[in-house]
């Protein structure tokens, strides 16, 4: 299991390559990459991501542990950035490997749902008209009941 919380960009291609190369006996590899979207209207000047150093790493490791308990997985990778990002920047990625494609897909989907609502990150969006904390969505919390 690899957990990285970093302000610097990551290279999704190199990460995917390295992750795939590190797996043995796995038939299926799924990756998810989250990208900062521009805002309609004013446009996004930048996004600031705040996190809780210490707790963040623990929370992500606990989520990855849960995934490894629920599905038969090889590797699990989670990378999440903090600090200043702009539209088009890659904000985070997860990767899962399993012998079975359904496990790899479900585990990646699960990681994303939990990461959104249980890992201590907060986003603030800056536009020409001001700055606003991104509100959590009821649907994100509701998504956890799928698992």
């Amino acid at each position, binding site marked *: 299991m690899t957990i990285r919380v970093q302000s610097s960009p990551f290279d999704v291609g190199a990460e995917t390559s390295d992750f795939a190369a590190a797996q043995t006996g796995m038939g299926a590899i799924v990756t998810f990459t989250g990208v900062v979207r521009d805002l309609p209207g004013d446009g996004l000047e930048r996004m600031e991501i705040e996190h*809780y150093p210490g707790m963040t790493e623990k*929370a992500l490791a606990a989520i990855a542990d849960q995934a490894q308990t629920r599905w038969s997985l090889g590797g699990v990778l989670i990378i999440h950035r903090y600090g200043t990002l702009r539209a088009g920047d890659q904000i985070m990625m997860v990767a899962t490997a399993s012998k079975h494609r359904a496990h790899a897909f479900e585990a990646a989907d699960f990681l994303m749902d939990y990461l*959104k*609502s249980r*890992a201590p*990150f907060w*986003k603030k969006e800056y536009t020409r008209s001001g700055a606003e*904390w991104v509100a959590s969505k009821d649907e994100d919390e509701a998504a956890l009941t799928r698992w």
Partner: protein
Amino acid sequence: MDILYFAWVRERVGLPRERIETTAATVADLVEELRAREERYAAAFADLSALRVAVDQELTDFDAPLAGAREVAFFPPMTGG
């Protein structure tokens, strides 16, 4: 005890962390103490349903006991991913 604030809770309280002396038995008791301090705390803790709390870096509830706790953090619902 170290008290940490994140996102708009940090902005309302006006600082990211502070060390306080408290005999609060639960998170809810601690919130009452903080609210009574100054207007900026009252503003930050006006609506508990909009807040989440972690004790020693584990998410928990407002009725969680504080015995032995070293670090309590208050923040809005997370928005990562």
